[in-house]
């Protein structure tokens, strides 16, 4: 055994010192008792020789005494065998040699007593080391030599040699034999120790192993039980070893299986077989745990053992379960996300359905969203148009769909869906269908088509396609049906909306005056700009109407709401306002009537703002009533802007009897008034005052001509991409009078008042007195009346004036043939003209007739360019 190799092997199991002496073959007790037996036997043998007939010359008494001493020593040593010390044994043995020497002396030279020395010598060789044994032999030699010297027998040397030499040789042989015996025993002990050490190491390994290690014999009896097994099962090794495992750790219902498996394993051919089992074990406290047992059959020199590692897999199972739970949660979350995405996709479709917009927008919106909802690769929408399916929208993945080829019902995949009104799923799409969809580059492996149904009618077909790895399943059909319901709704809404929108636009356009009535001395221009988004036809409207006395009524209104309802309300307001205004009602009274109309007749809470402005150029003032509308902007003849803030009241339809107040302001010739709706000045996120300030700033540099002014303001105020709301704009300019003027009127009775109004303004401008004005207006009226009477309800006539100092020329020109006034009542016209003017000339020409009137003003002309025109 390599001594040095024995490293300290742990405190627990311990070990002996490495430098151990050769082992004693016998312990002290055995030595002592053997010595005691030797003494007793010697004494008894001595006594026996005395009892037998023996030679003369033997001193029997002395010998009996010696035998007695020997027996006494034997008894003492035997009794003290457990307490005797090594040196005492040597002393006793030396005493024995001494007793033998005395016995030899007392028996004389004739006896064979020297043979007895062999006893003590052999004892020494047998029980003591070689050196000490030789010392005892030396002592024997000395003491026998002393005896021989005293007895002086014959041939003493031979006697000595024989008596001492014999036990010496025999003792040496015994010593050698025992020495070998010791060496073998030492080797055996070393092997045993090495084995123990190895076992300890193995045990340590096993004990420190996290897994329980158990060995069983073929009957199931536990042979090995490591520390982990102790911890795992709750049984200590001392308790477990030697007992059957089945009783200790196998739950009752598994014991038969345990027996069967153990037998199978033990009987399996070959020296070693390994099996793994997922099993359940019971602990000492009865609790159970899942375990993985890896068992092997081990053939140890013919003995069949079953060795097994047992691993508690509770943790592993828990971790596995946690992993499984995590995976399930992950999957559930992914599913939830997918569903959420799908639902939000659906919601987008619903939004598309609810948000009223143009059909094309909805279609393109929907077709980009549907493939996302379904995780499809492409999608198209067919709409039914004139009994055929027309491809109307394609998703991003469909670059070259065949749009020129409408499908009949029952024709192709989409046609079949439309005809059967049932969804269809195919995993073998027809090549022709794939070609129609322009999907040649896509390896379409499945295709779903669902009909779009609105109120039981097929309005279209929605088709989606998938390419690997995606492959549609039946659930996808259900999903697409849901999507299709919403798409159908959206399309239906869009169609209805577009019809309604078109109707409303038409109606609204028809409500706006197609021709701005011309008023002499006033220029009016209007613009209507629909909102960019075209979400619905707004309720903005305007009107321009002549009012009695030659003035012009300007109307700007905004009916709450949009679409058809608003448009029809505008229509009613417009008719009513015209009727009331033309009856000659004052502006405030007109608005009261309109308010009553809305208040009493509107089926729901309708509301409308309305601004009614009357410009009477001959009076040089502007009058207005404002029902909740934005104030008109007056642009002075010097370009200075001011909002006409007064006269504001609540919108129409809010109160049953609101007070409308008519307010007036001076309006010089050359001034303009601007009416508008909030679409012009209202911008998202900005206060309306900001927009109004912008408007006021814009007019400062604006051209004065109303048409140009409108264009300028729209350009300045409305973003290039269009206003968020409809914009209505109405501008009026009072033209400054010159010494010359010319204006054309329709040849109809209604034009006469305007003509007179203009004429009064001009005459006032050139400085005519009131009476002169009245007379000249009457004269011109006669001329115009004559034109109108003969025009037969068509054509135009022109009124022109020219002033040179105090002389005035007024001409009325028509395009017809002058007919002399008839006799009688109507003949008074010409006589009136002649009475009222200085000269009257009628100049018939082939193109028409010109009546030329001339008069020189009286007075100093102080009125000229002063006072109201």
């Amino acid at each position, binding site marked *: 055994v390599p001594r040095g190799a024995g490293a300290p092997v742990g405190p627990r199991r311990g070990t002996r010192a490495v430098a151990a002496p050769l082992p004693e073959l016998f312990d002290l007790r055995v030595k002592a008792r053997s010595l005691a037996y030797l003494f007793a036997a010697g004494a008894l043998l001595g006594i026996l020789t005395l009892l037998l007939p023996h030679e003369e010359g033997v001193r029997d008494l002395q010998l009996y005494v010696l035998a007695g001493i020997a027996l006494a020593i034997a008894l003492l040593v035997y009794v003290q065998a457990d307490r005797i010390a090594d040196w005492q044994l040597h002393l006793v043995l030396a005493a024995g040699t001494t007793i033998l020497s005395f016995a030899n002396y007392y028996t004389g030279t004739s006896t064979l007593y020297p043979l007895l020395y062999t006893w003590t010598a052999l004892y020494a060789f047998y029980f003591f080391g070689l050196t000490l044994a030789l010392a005892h032999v030396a002592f024997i030699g000395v003491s026998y030599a002393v005896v021989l010297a005293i007895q002086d027998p014959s041939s003493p040397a031979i006697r000595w040699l024989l008596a001492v030499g014999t036990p010496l040789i025999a003792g040496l042989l015994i010593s050698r034999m025992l020495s070998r015996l010791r060496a073998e025993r030492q080797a055996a002990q070393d092997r045993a120790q090495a084995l123990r050490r190895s076992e300890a190491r193995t045990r340590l390994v096993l004990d420190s192993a996290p897994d329980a290690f158990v060995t069983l014999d073929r009957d199931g009896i536990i042979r090995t039980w490591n520390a982990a097994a102790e911890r795992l099962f709750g049984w200590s090794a001392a308790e477990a070893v030697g007992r059957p495992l089945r009783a200790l750790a196998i739950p009752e219902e598994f014991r038969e299986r345990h027996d069967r498996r153990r037998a199978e394993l033990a009987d399996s051919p070959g020296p070693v077989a390994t099996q793994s089992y997922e099993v359940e074990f019971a602990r000492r406290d009865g609790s159970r745990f899942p375990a993985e047992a890896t068992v092997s059959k081990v053939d140890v020199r013919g003995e069949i053992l079953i060795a097994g590692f047992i691993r508690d897999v509770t943790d592993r199972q828990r971790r596995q379960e946690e992993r499984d739970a995590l995976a399930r949660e992950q999957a559930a979350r992914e599913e939830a996300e997918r569903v959420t995405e799908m639902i939000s996709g659906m919601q987008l479709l619903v939004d598309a359905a609810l948000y009223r917009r143009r059909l094309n927008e909805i279609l393109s919106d929907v077709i980009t969203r549907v493939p996302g909802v379904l995780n499809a690769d492409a999608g198209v929408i067919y709409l039914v148009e004139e009994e055929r399916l027309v491809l109307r929208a394609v998703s991003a993945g469909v670059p070259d769909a065949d749009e020129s080829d409408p499908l009949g019902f029952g024709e192709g995949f989409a046609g079949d869906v439309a005809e059967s009104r049932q969804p269809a799923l195919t995993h073998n799409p027809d090549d022709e269908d794939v070609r129609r969809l322009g999907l040649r580059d896509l390896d379409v492996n499945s295709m779903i088509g669902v009909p779009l149904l609105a109120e039981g009618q097929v309005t279209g077909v929605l088709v989606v396609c998938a390419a690997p790895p995606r492959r549609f399943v039946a659930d996808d059909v259900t999903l697409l049906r849901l999507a299709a319901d919403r798409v159908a709704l959206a399309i239906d809404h869009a169609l209805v909306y577009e019809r309604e929108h078109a109707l409303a636009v038409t109606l609204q356009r028809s409500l706006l005056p197609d021709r701005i009535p011309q008023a002499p001395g006033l220029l009016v221009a209007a613009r209507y700009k629909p909102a960019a988004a075209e979400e619905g036809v707004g309720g903005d409207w305007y009107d321009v109407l002549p009012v009695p006395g030659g003035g012009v009524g300007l109307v700007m209104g905004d009916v709450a709401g949009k679409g058809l309802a608003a448009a029809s309300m505008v229509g009613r307001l417009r008719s009513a306002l015209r009727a009331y205004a033309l009856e000659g009602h004052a502006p405030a009274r007109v608005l009261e009537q309109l308010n009553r109309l809305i208040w009493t007749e509107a089926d729901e809470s309708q509301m409308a703002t309305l601004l009614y402005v009357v410009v009477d150029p001959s009076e040089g003032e502007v009058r207005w009533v404002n029902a909740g509308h934005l104030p008109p902007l007056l642009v002075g003849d010097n370009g200075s802007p001011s909002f006409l803030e007064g006269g504001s009241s609540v919108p129409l339809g809010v109160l049953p009897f609101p007070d409308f107040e008519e307010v007036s302001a001076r309006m010089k010739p050359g001034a303009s008034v601007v009416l508008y709706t909030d679409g012009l000045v209202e911008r998202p996120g900005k206060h309306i005052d900001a927009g109004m300030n912008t408007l006021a700033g814009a007019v400062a540099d604006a051209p004065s001509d109303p048409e140009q002014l409108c264009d300028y303001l729209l350009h300045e105020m409305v973003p290039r991409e269009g206003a968020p709301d409809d914009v209505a704009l109405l501008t009026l300019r009072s033209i400054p009078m010159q010494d010359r003027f010319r204006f054309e009127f329709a040849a109809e009775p209604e034009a*006469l008042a305007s003509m007179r109004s203009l004429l009064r303004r001009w005459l006032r401008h050139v400085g005519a007195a009131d009476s002169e004005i009245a007379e000249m207006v*009457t004269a011109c009226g*006669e001329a115009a009346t004559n034109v109108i009477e003969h025009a037969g309800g068509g054509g135009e006539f022109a009124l022109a004036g020219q002033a040179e100092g105090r002389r005035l020329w007024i001409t009325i020109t028509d395009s017809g043939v002058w007919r002399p006034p008839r006799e009688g009542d109507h003949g008074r016209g010409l*006589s*009136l003209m002649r009475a009222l003017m200085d000269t009257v000339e009628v100049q018939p020409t082939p193109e028409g007739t010109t009546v030329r009137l001339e008069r020189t003003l009286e007075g100093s002309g102080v009125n000229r360019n002063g006072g109201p025109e």
Partner: protein
Amino acid sequence: VTELVQLEIEDRGEVVVARVAGELDIAGASSTGETIGGSVPTSAHGLVVDFTELEFIDSSGIAMLFGLARRLGSRRQELAVVARGGKAVARVLEIVEFERAAPIHETLDDALAGLSPASS
């Protein structure tokens, strides 16, 4: 369609008073004449046409007035016209010598008083 003329007719039993305001031209003359003429019952003694508030009159209005005068005259009913002197209407009436057809008074009271009383 312009309603330049405002007409107010008051039946005072013996006398009908028609107040004409605004501007009377070819657009409204004939209808105004018809209305006034139709409002005078045969039992009435006479008609006063009050032009106090009238701003303008042309030959159409004058013709209407002469028409009324003829119509009343044929029924032996009297006509009087109120027109303030110095105003355009009075000037026109003067030019066409309407005085020959019916009397022109400065005020309504004068006109009513000027009508030959039948019973009062």
